[in-house]
């Protein structure tokens, strides 16, 4: 069974969980043998052009030492053989098109999303 993980939100949980919780889940399930692909759409496309870790949180004398590193997480997914796609039109609408895209992330047109959905057995839209 092949599942397409659709992520259309950016920075959900990244402060407290120190990762994107769906990217984390995808890494874990891949390690358990799952056949997965990731589609970044909506605000989620920002992950494809992000190049630095999240700024660490600081409250009073409490200082975060291990903030989320989305770029690293996407890189790990690619190393594990998980294809990662980002929708071109979503990048354009947000003024992000033309920025360097993380190595291994494939930018696809909105029209190509249909085929991506067709090729998966299940779509999990988070």
């Amino acid at each position: 069974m092949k599942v397409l993980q659709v992520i259309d939100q950016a920075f959900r949980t990244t402060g407290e969980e120190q990762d994107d919780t769906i990217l984390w889940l995808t890494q874990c399930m891949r390690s358990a043998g799952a056949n997965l692909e990731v589609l970044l759409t909506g605000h989620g496309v920002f992950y494809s052009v992000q190049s630095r870790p999240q700024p660490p949180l600081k409250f009073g004398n409490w200082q975060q030492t291990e903030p989320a590193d989305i770029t690293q997480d996407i890189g790990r997914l690619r190393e594990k053989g998980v294809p990662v796609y980002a929708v071109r039109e979503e990048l354009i609408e947000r003024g992000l098109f033309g920025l360097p895209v993380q190595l291994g992330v494939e930018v696809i047109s909105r029209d190509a999303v249909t085929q991506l959905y067709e090729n998966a057995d299940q779509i999990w839209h988070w």
Partner: protein
Amino acid sequence: MNNNSINNSMTKTLTFAFMDPPFEHERTITFFRLLDSALEKNANVRVFAYEGAVALAFARQQPHGNAVHSRDTEAEKHPLTKDWIAALQSKAKDKGLAFEWINCGLCVDERGVNEAIDGCARGGPADFWRYASTAHNTLTIGTR
């Protein structure tokens, strides 16, 4: 038909992944309605509770009175999601269906909601994949 004989090779199993905590979103109500409807349609149900959803089964949830409503604890009968889960467990049992529930263990730890009601186990993403890959279909409901 004997309700206790429903669970056979023709029975479909549906997996749900849910992320929202109790008492905050209408999605939580909708999620429980979906579970109830699945059982009503004689489907086995499996739930992977992720992030805040692990508190849905927290055994220490307590009802409270409400002075604004002029009702004490007993009269208010405040809804508790742990009771909804128990009710669905009971419904599934009466119908001869399976109702399985796994909480993401790390999510439980960070929230301190380790005490879950009976029938709700601790697990992780591998369990979610096991649930999903052997189910008829899976519905994921992310938090917003």
